[in-house]
């Protein structure tokens, strides 16, 4: 009865594949030299890499200056990295008090287990871990801002890459749930909920993020009573989050539309309520389909945090500008500072991207 159990091995002995189709040689043959066009492309690529990489390494490392107190002391024609020694802390922490750097470092250190419990399964103590992950944003806020016995540090001291991380991570954490609610709202049967969601999404998507940031910083203050003031960084975080969640909503709506009607019907027929069927059946599938789009939005959001420079916050690019216009270093560090910022962003964004590929593989239930 079970046709898959029929044993075919009696019809012939299975042999290992030919040696030139497996291993390194097999890989090179199938990926680099299969056919004339591919072989040509391989050689052209190698030539281009040879043109680019050695001079880049020469400039960035071998001919670079690593010591000195001012730009004039960088005399070689390579990169000038001498500023790293004095200025790297500003790049990372902005104007955060030097004596409290440990609080930022601790917050980043504590982020890793919090992320791990959200991102990976089968970790020890995962029941408590999930609660820890939920509590992390509050813990991080307490560490960074202070209060409750810890010395208070106002958010206008935040800067450098830490500012990008704070704004980016808060956006990532909050935009996903808000985006999910908006996507569900847009597909709701209740006209009021639907209208509200559509209006919000279309309005936010139709306006540039910079405009929203200006609204948050300048115009909002005109409408608030004079004695009420919302923290500037909080306003920025809210705007970035709302901006990303409008995009997120549309990405997730695409995923929701890909779920066949039969899934809703099966869930209904089993007696599951709306929220139950969404949480247990529809969203796990819809979010899985939407992973590439969600990650796209996350990465875009994280890079958009550099726009805060326009409204006068000194993120990592702001710090680069500060150094570039500093008389001691002027004209010497333009490329170097941007390169450093690029490396920071690349490391984070590339990690997000790799993780999402890993996640897609893990969630693929059609594997045999």
């Amino acid at each position, binding site marked *: 009865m079970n*046709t898959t159990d029929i044993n075919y091995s009696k019809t012939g002995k299975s042999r290992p594949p030919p040696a030139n189709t497996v291993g390194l040689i097999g890989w090179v043959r199938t990926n680099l030299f299969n056919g004339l066009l591919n072989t040509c492309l391989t050689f052209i690529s190698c030539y281009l890499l040879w043109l680019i990489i050695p001079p880049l390494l020469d400039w960035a490392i071998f001919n670079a200056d690593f010591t000195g107190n001012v730009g004039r002391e960088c005399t070689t024609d390579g990169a000038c990295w001498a500023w790293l020694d004095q200025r790297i802390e500003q790049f990372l922490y902005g104007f955060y008090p030097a004596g409290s750097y440990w609080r930022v470092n601790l917050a980043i250190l504590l982020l890793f287990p919090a992320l791990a419990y959200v991102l990976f399964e089968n970790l020890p103590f995962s029941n408590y871990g999930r609660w820890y992950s939920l509590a992390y944003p509050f813990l991080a806020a307490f560490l960074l801002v202070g209060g409750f016995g810890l010395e208070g540090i106002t958010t206008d001291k935040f800067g450098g890459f830490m500012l990008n991380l704070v704004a980016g991570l808060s956006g990532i954490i909050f935009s996903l749930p808000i985006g999910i609610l908006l996507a569900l709202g847009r597909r709701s049967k209740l006209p009021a909920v639907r209208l509200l969601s559509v209006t919000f999404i279309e309005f936010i998507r139709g306006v540039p993020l910079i405009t929203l940031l200006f609204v948050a910083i300048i115009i909002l203050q005109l409408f608030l009573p004079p004695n009420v003031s919302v923290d500037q960084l909080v306003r920025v975080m809210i705007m970035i989050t709302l901006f990303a969640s409008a995009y997120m909503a549309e990405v997730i709506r695409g995923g929701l539309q890909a779920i066949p009607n039969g899934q809703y019907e*099966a869930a*209904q027929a*089993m*007696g*599951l309520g709306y929220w139950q069927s969404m949480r247990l*059946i529809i969203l796990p599938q819809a979010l899985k389909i939407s992973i590439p789009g969600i990650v796209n939005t996350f990465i875009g959001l994280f890079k958009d945090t550099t726009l805060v420079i326009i409204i006068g916050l000194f993120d990592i690019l702001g710090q680069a500008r500060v150094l570039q216009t500093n008389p001691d270093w002027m004209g010497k560090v333009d490329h170097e500072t941007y390169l450093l910022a690029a490396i920071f962003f690349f490391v984070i964004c590339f990690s997000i991207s790799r993780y999402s590929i890993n996640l897609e593989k893990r969630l693929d*239930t*059609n594997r*045999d």
Partner: protein
Amino acid sequence: MAEPKTSKSNVDQNVIEITALNKWFGNFHVLQDINLTVSQGEKIIICGPSGSGKSTLIRCINRLEEHQEGKVVVNGTELSHDLKDIDAVRSEVGMVFQSFNLFPHLTALDNCTLALIWVRKTPKADAEALAMEYLERVKIPEQAHKYPGQLSGGQQQRVAIARSLCMNPKIMLFDEPTSALDPEMIKEVLDTMIELAETGMTMLCVTHEMGFAKTIADRVIFMDEGRIVEENEPEKFFANPEHERTKLFLSQILAH
């Protein structure tokens, strides 16, 4: 079908009462003045050409479709806009779909335990034990930890039957359960359904498997253009159908 005929059930209690049911899709009058009473343990086969409203009819029984006129009473509960009543009915009525509709992100076992855990609030271990029992009944306990995408169509449909049975329903609805299957797999699903019929389950089944209908049916209903055209015991229905439309339909599906 070589299986022996199941004993015809005793007529004691009506579990489904449909009176003067009318339903429209837009302007299309899909169900017209349907009256149908099903008693406990009865097996009813519904057949008819496509678009005749047979699927819509059984979907009205668990309110996957809303009716506009008439009364549908299931297990003493009348279906209305009251969500509580709908939930009450749905927990008593199992449904098996043409396209299986298993949840692809869950294993066969998790598909079966889901409603037990979240609707019935059964503890996980008990739910899994019960689910394994039903997976054994449909003869695929060894596939419990596989995902639907790794199972054949017939296996998926048997998981879907086990999933419905886990909720211990009083009525089972089958909406063309074998139409999406390869010929080789139809038999394994029909065998499962025949075994289920032998347990005394009340079953309404939309199908064109006429051999199967002869084996288990207490009554065969023929629908065309939204109406019940003919309704009879299988022997009489197949041997001498009364209406011309039924004769035509039977001659077409029994021709080969």
